[in-house]
């Protein structure tokens, strides 16, 4: 044992050991990326299964149909007559219908201000009290008047009304059923859920006059197409990449796909042959949506409150009619009705790649952690490197002293590097504040200005540092070290909350690990700086907006709205985690270290 220890100690002194970390770091990134691409293989992903036995999906006979079809047609007439009217007029009419069914109704006003615009409306909701329950639990059925693409929910609205009428006739409900009819798909449900949990700002969102028990689950119907459909599209992404319990998705897949015999699609993959490329694409789309953290439907707002929710959207040309859709909802509600406790058995962290194929957190998390670990490894490496005496001063003595004494550690000068990194971190509050508070008309000029300033800023900062403080190479190493340490820390904490966002930011920031000051070659540092500018946060934002055919203004507006309404924190991660790391790296690339002016002290 002592021999082993001493040889380990001798190894620690070996100068070659200091050459390894950048390669380990690169290896981490490569393994992390390859890992991600292995996930869709059969060997790494798993078949889905129902974990909560109480759900019993598809085990009940569904009776929705028959004469309810006539009721549906009548409601469809009513709803079609309302298209184009104001929110209040629509709610007046819908309220009279729902009241006529014998349900208690209530309304709620909300107003959101974001990006210089006002988003307001009025929610209508009704509570069907459970014949066999005590109002301690409830399930929610949501229909938004408009879906996220602003198409009128022509079939979904009448279907929900018909279902409400149908559910009222049954005596088997043990949980209250809440029917929520909101004017739009994002703001209305958000205001309602916030107010339901008393987490609203009462100056913008009014409180709910009528409440029921703890929400156990929610299903939203987005059925805007007029004709019959072939398959159901399950939208499950919540705000900030939170996901509903996998059991809920499995139940819907089981009922729609198994019992009703319709197709089920995820992530807008209308065709899916369950082969590797399709699986990979489904997974990557899911990751991108999760990373952006935006609300993708009326269900998204429920998930942060630990209410499992999905939006069901029929699509395609087929022979399934509204009644089949209604039976899917009925079956799902019967399953949720069976629950004895909150959905908790199955996974909350997963990546779906097919309706019956997923990977769980234990399998995919290592890839993001490896990417985050690369930053930490480089930070430790740079710290060790900064403790080494500069090569010129020790070159003659290194040969003889290799055996006798440990290499002397140079005293590190921490104040300047700490100051620079702190400054970068605090400066990140400025773009975050500006882009979240600016009105929509100012966003484009603001973005252009920011892009220009962002290019010039590293030069200015570097010039300032050189002329006032003349940092040494060691201090540049320390700047890099601290900034990478922070980046690695933020990303590994983030990976537990929103894996995809951590992975995306980690990969985009990965090159920052490997750039450093070029003391002898100003040309190289300029080239490196140009390359760095290509992967700067605003440049990537611009490029991805171009790639997806969006204009930057609408992207920024969406981000600001998401920040104010749903509390999406992706912008915080971009501006306060990624951008400061990029800035610190750029400053260190442009750095012109002063060699040999500082005293080498030995400890």
């Amino acid at each position: 044992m002592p021999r082993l220890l001493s040889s380990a100690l001798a190894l620690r002194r070996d100068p070659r050991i200091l050459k390894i970390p950048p390669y380990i770091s690169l290896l981490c990134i490569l393994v992390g990326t390859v890992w991600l691409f292995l996930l869709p293989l059969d060997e790494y992903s798993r078949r889905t299964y129902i974990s909560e036995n109480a759900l019993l999906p598809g085990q009940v006979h569904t009776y929705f149909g028959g004469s309810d079809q006539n009721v549906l047609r009548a409601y469809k007439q009513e709803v079609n007559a309302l298209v184009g009217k104001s929110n209040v007029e629509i709610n007046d009419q819908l309220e009279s219908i729902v009241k006529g069914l014998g349900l208690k109704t209530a309304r709620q006003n909300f107003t959101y201000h974001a990006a210089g615009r006002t988003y307001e409306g009025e929610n209508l909701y009704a509570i069907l009290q459970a014949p066999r329950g005590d109002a301690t639990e409830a399930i929610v059925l949501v229909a938004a008047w408009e879906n996220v693409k602003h198409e009128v929910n022509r079939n979904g609205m009448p279907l929900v009304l018909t279902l409400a009428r149908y559910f009222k006739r049954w005596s088997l409900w043990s949980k209250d059923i809440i029917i929520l009819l909101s004017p739009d798909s994002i703001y209305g449900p958000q205001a309602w859920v916030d107010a339901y949990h008393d987490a609203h700002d009462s100056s913008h969102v009014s409180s709910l006059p009528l409440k029921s028990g703890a929400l156990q689950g929610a299903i939203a119907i987005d059925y805007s197409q007029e004709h019959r459909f072939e398959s159901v599209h399950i939208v499950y992404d919540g705000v900030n990449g939170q996901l509903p319990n996998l059991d809920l998705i499995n139940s819907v897949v089981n009922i729609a796909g198994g019992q009703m015999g319709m197709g089920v699609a995820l992530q807008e993959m209308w065709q899916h042959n369950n082969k590797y490329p399709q699986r990979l694409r489904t997974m990557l789309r899911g990751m991108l949506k999760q990373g952006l953290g935006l609300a993708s439907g009326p269900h998204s707002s429920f998930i942060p409150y630990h209410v499992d929710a999905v939006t069901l959207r029929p699509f395609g040309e087929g022979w399934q009619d509204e009644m089949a859709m209604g039976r899917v909802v009925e079956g799902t509600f019967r399953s949720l009705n069976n629950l004895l406790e909150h959905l908790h058995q199955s996974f909350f962290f997963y990546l779906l790649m097919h309706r019956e194929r997923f990977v769980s957190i234990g399998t995919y998390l290592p890839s993001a952690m490896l990417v985050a670990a690369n930053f930490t490894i480089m930070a430790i490496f740079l710290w060790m490197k900064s403790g080494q005496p500069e090569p010129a001063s020790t070159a003659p003595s290194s040969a003889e002293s290799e055996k006798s004494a440990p290499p002397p550690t140079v005293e590190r000068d921490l104040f300047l590097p700490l100051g620079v990194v702190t400054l970068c971190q605090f400066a990140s509050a400025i773009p975050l504040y500006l882009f979240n508070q600016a009105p929509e008309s100012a966003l484009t000029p603001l973005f252009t200005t920011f892009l220009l300033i962002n290019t010039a800023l590293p030069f200015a900062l570097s010039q300032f540092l050189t002329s006032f403080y003349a940092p040494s190479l060691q201090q540049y190493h320390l700047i890099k070290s601290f900034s990478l340490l922070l980046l690695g820390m933020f990303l590994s904490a983030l990976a537990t909350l929103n894996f995809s966002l951590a992975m995306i930011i980690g990969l985009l920031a990965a090159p920052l690990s490997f750039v450093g000051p070029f003391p002898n070659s100003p040309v190289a540092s300029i080239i490196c700086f140009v390359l760095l500018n290509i992967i700067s946060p605003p440049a990537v934002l611009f490029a991805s907006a171009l790639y997806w055919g969006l204009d930057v203004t609408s992207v920024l507006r969406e981000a600001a709205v998401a920040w104010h309404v749903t509390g999406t924190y992706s912008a915080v991660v971009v501006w306060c985690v990624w951008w400061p790391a990029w800035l610190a790296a750029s400053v260190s690339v442009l750095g012109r270290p002063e060699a040999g002016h500082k005293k080498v002290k030995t400890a």
Partner: protein
Amino acid sequence: MDGGKVTVGRTAGLYIGAAVLRLAIFTLLPGLPDLLTGRVEISTPVTSFKRLQEGLFLYNHNVSPYDGGVYHQAPLFLPLFSLLPNALSYPIFTYLLYIAVDLLSASALWKIADSGEAGSSAQFTSPRREKRWSGFVIAAAFLLNPFTLATCIGRSTSVFTTCAILHAIAKAVSGAPFGAMVALSFASYLSMYPLLLLPPLLLLCYDRQRPDRADKSALSFAATHVPVVFGVLALLFGMSYLITGSWEFLPSTYGVQLTLSDLTPNVGLWWYFFIEMFDSFRSFFLAVFWLHLSCYVGGLTVRIRRQPLVVLTLLLGIFAIFKPYPSISDTSLFLGLVPLYRHVFPLMRYTFVIAAVILYASFLGPAFYYLWIYAGSGNANFFYAITLVWGLGQSLLVCDLMFAVLRDEWEVERPEMVGKEIRQI
């Protein structure tokens, strides 16, 4: 040179800056104080401001504050806080009180730093003592430490204990043993565990006596000063009895700490252990845990006899890890004292690792707590794992500091070994 003037200006600048910063956070982010008050990392059952409000409400309505089992803090807080206007309608007075307490702690720390006790005590003078930070830097490091700031904004009552402990040490190094004993009694009255600091503090007082009225015999010194502590404690208990009208406060404050009857999660290592434990083993393990906590006192006091301030610092670090209801406030006190040992920093071996571990733990802790409590997608093991990492980071710091101090002493004895690598055989 008018160094005096500059120093006064800098002192005032630091204090005003720290006060303005705190006041700005209090007023510009009005939601933050209540948010932080609810965080388990900051507010423990025995220091929570929310629980204090509850006790205060009961006290003001002539009900025993200990009815209901929520309030576990010292009774004398109640008359103090009922003097202030209601914290809900006029929070500014509470803010000012907490800011003042933080500044008082910083001024005590400044005195300790300026005394130079860390570098050269009565029995040992470090050869490296020249390299040290001034009181200004150390006070600034304490006041601007995010943990101190968070504790102040979260209005945890542990700031009063911190202040009393620092004043006890400051009095001791400035040769006022009586004041030190009184301050320590206050600290012990508020939180109980500072009583364990009595032996090293007595030694520190003994070493730093004024030469004109020095007591030569350590025994007689102890015999005159230990009764002071118990006298003041008795006085405080008597006042508490008069205020609350019964001795009920003893089991509700100190009893809770001794028996860990409130198992609210915190950053310490006790709660999870005692949640998992069968009741029949509870009293045994309570005894073991308390024995473990107190056994460091004797060992460290004897081993590092020549530098009592080091013992105090290390003990505060150990308490921040192993006491029943620790919070980041205890860590901030320990981290406030660590910069006094600037001269042995070059001897420490794991500074970067320690800093990284503590940073990682302080970010992952809230994330995992969120996953457990709010998102519901994690469980208690997530948070406990992080508190273990947090404890590991702090114990690494304690060990590394101890190593550096002992090595510093050792190099004086064995000058030929300076700069050589040592290995335990």
